């Protein structure tokens, strides 16, 4: 099977890989780039744990053909820290108990970042809407919503 050369930006660095036709972005990131932060949950776009940003927009990497991101900029949780420091969202998630098993956390954080990057002071409803494609089976939605609001400006109900 012929391989397709592919270049894109991964968390601010240029990367080049060869992919099989039909390879999805999740597999390309995890198995070819070695970035294990996006997770496999369903492979059907149902759970959101594979969420990444493509040119700042939230995408489900399990349903994104790797070839389609050529020349574009990909952000994952692996690139969220600001140097040695946690991003305010990461800090807020930690402080607000917004992770239990941690498996949905990468996707939740990317969905939250996509929201705050375009809307720095969202309403509670807008936060709920922004993470509505992400499933947390430990049922920790309330702390997650509170964490995102906290990161946005300290408006926390709990």
């Amino acid at each position: 099977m012929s391989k397709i050369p592919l270049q894109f930006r991964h968390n601010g660095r240029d990367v080049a890989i060869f992919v099989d036709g039909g390879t999805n972005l999740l597999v390309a990131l995890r198995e070819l780039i070695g970035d294990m932060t996006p997770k496999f949950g369903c492979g059907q776009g149902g759970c959101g744990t594979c969420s990444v940003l493509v040119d700042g927009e939230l995408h489900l990497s399990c349903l994104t053909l790797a070839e389609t991101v050529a020349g574009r900029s990909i952000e994952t949780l692996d690139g969220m820290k600001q140097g040695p420091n946690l991003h305010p969202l990461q800090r807020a998630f930690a402080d607000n108990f917004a992770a239990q098993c941690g498996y949905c956390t990468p996707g939740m954080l990317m969905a939250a970042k996509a929201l705050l990057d375009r809307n720095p002071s969202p309403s509670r409803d807008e936060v709920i809407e922004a993470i509505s494609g992400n499933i947390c089976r430990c049922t920790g939605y309330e702390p997650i919503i509170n964490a995102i609001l906290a990161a946005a400006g300290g408006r926390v109900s709990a």
Partner: protein
Amino acid sequence: MLELRKDIFADERDDNLKEIGKGTQRQDMLGHVTGTSSYFNDHKLQGMLHLKVVRSTQAHARIRRIDTSEAERSAGVRRIIRGSDVPVNLNTLLSLINFGKDDEPSLAVDKVRYKGEPIVAIIADSEREAFEAIAKVKVDYEPLPAVLDVEDALKPGAPVVNETYPKNTFTYHETYDRQQLRFGDADAALATADHVLEQRYQMSPIEHAPTETNGAIAAPDTNGRYVVYTSTQALFFSVDTCAKILDVPSNTFHFIGGTVGGGFGGKVDTLTEPLAILGAMLTGKPVRYVFGREEEMQYGPPRGAERIYIKDGVMRDGRIVARKIRAYFDSGAYTRLSSYAAVKCAAHLPGPYTIPNVYGDVYCVFTNRTPATAMRGFGVTAMDFAIECQMDKLANLVNMDPMEFRILNAYRDGDMKAHRREAKNTALIECVQVAAEKAKWPLRAEFKQASSRKDGGGARAVIPPTPADSRARPTATVQQRTSYDRLPPTVTREPPRDPPPPAPPPPSPRPTAPSHGATRFSSVFGTRRR
């Protein structure tokens, strides 16, 4: 958020708490928010192969023939594993504690007993090639009548699901087809009760649906051992189960786990490790076996279904005088942990209430459904649902407030429970009172003043004559008290002294008297068979 009600039972403890009531950061939180927590599937190993299984399309069928010839020629295929390749191809999870008979193969050989049962495993260079190869395996089935309902499974002439248990029920103590509880004379009390209410409840299987699916990666180590990354919730249990199935000492394995992407009970069955390790043994390469989402949802073990019949006798003044329960726990095609769930179910009867006549039969039943497993309070959850629905209906029947009805019938310290153990440290009354307060639900004064520490014991501590109880029972053993137990209610209580006395020294070991835990263990699991 968290509220500690220190006013309740305040004299029973000091407030020298170092951690309770204070926020503490989880030790794994930093890993979670930075994405560096390492789940089993986050390991990329050189030359890793991929394992997929062929699953039964039938709920119940004899396997006439398995044709793998085309799959063997499929691109990328490294190895095909059949049941005959599994060193010990019959196991039951709780055999590690001598509870139950081996009844489940890793790969089906002569028969499939539920839709989705693994039959053949194929290892290939890539996941795609493994998928393509399993599609080429041809299994010739001779369909058998399937039984999918717990009560149908117990009817005479019902298809035998699992030949290890030909009556379709788990066998306790190598004799009994159910868990039985007999306390007083429920039938006589029902005959004289003012009202009798009989209801049927049932709960469907529930899938845990963890975001991370079940899986394992096994890799040969240089020292003859195997490193296994796994999603298991029960790591040491899984090590020993693999050792048994693969017939090697358990120190052959170096299991690495503990970071689980959601389990809730659905990752205790050692579903993927044995085949992943066997694959690594047979190919000499790292092998990954991970469930897809469809496999997880369709064939991953769920919380077992239950059907429950409750017949209660209640007096006009609200006292429940008899509770008779018949419950069926749907184990699916194999035992896994359902035998234990039924024990828990029986041990929970009649709920946190003092009822002088209790009769319980709980069956662990085999059907041609997906084997059930653990899930958050399994065995108790459905029974509690049934009992509490029933409590509301009974309250309505006698025209009582449902909260007050529960307080009236709640167990209290010193009461005799139906399993002939004294109720200690009870707190249902206080829970109901606080719930009513939070809900701004009015309670009358006498119910507001009720206490778990008042009005228990005495006549309520008596074990009633139990007619069906023909087998000789040992006389009631003395129940050991621990430093956490409340004093028996007959003893007058002195106000707490100030300062509180130091904690008593731990009791010295008494080898002649079996400890509380050991006694209970043997009464549940019976005599050791080896």
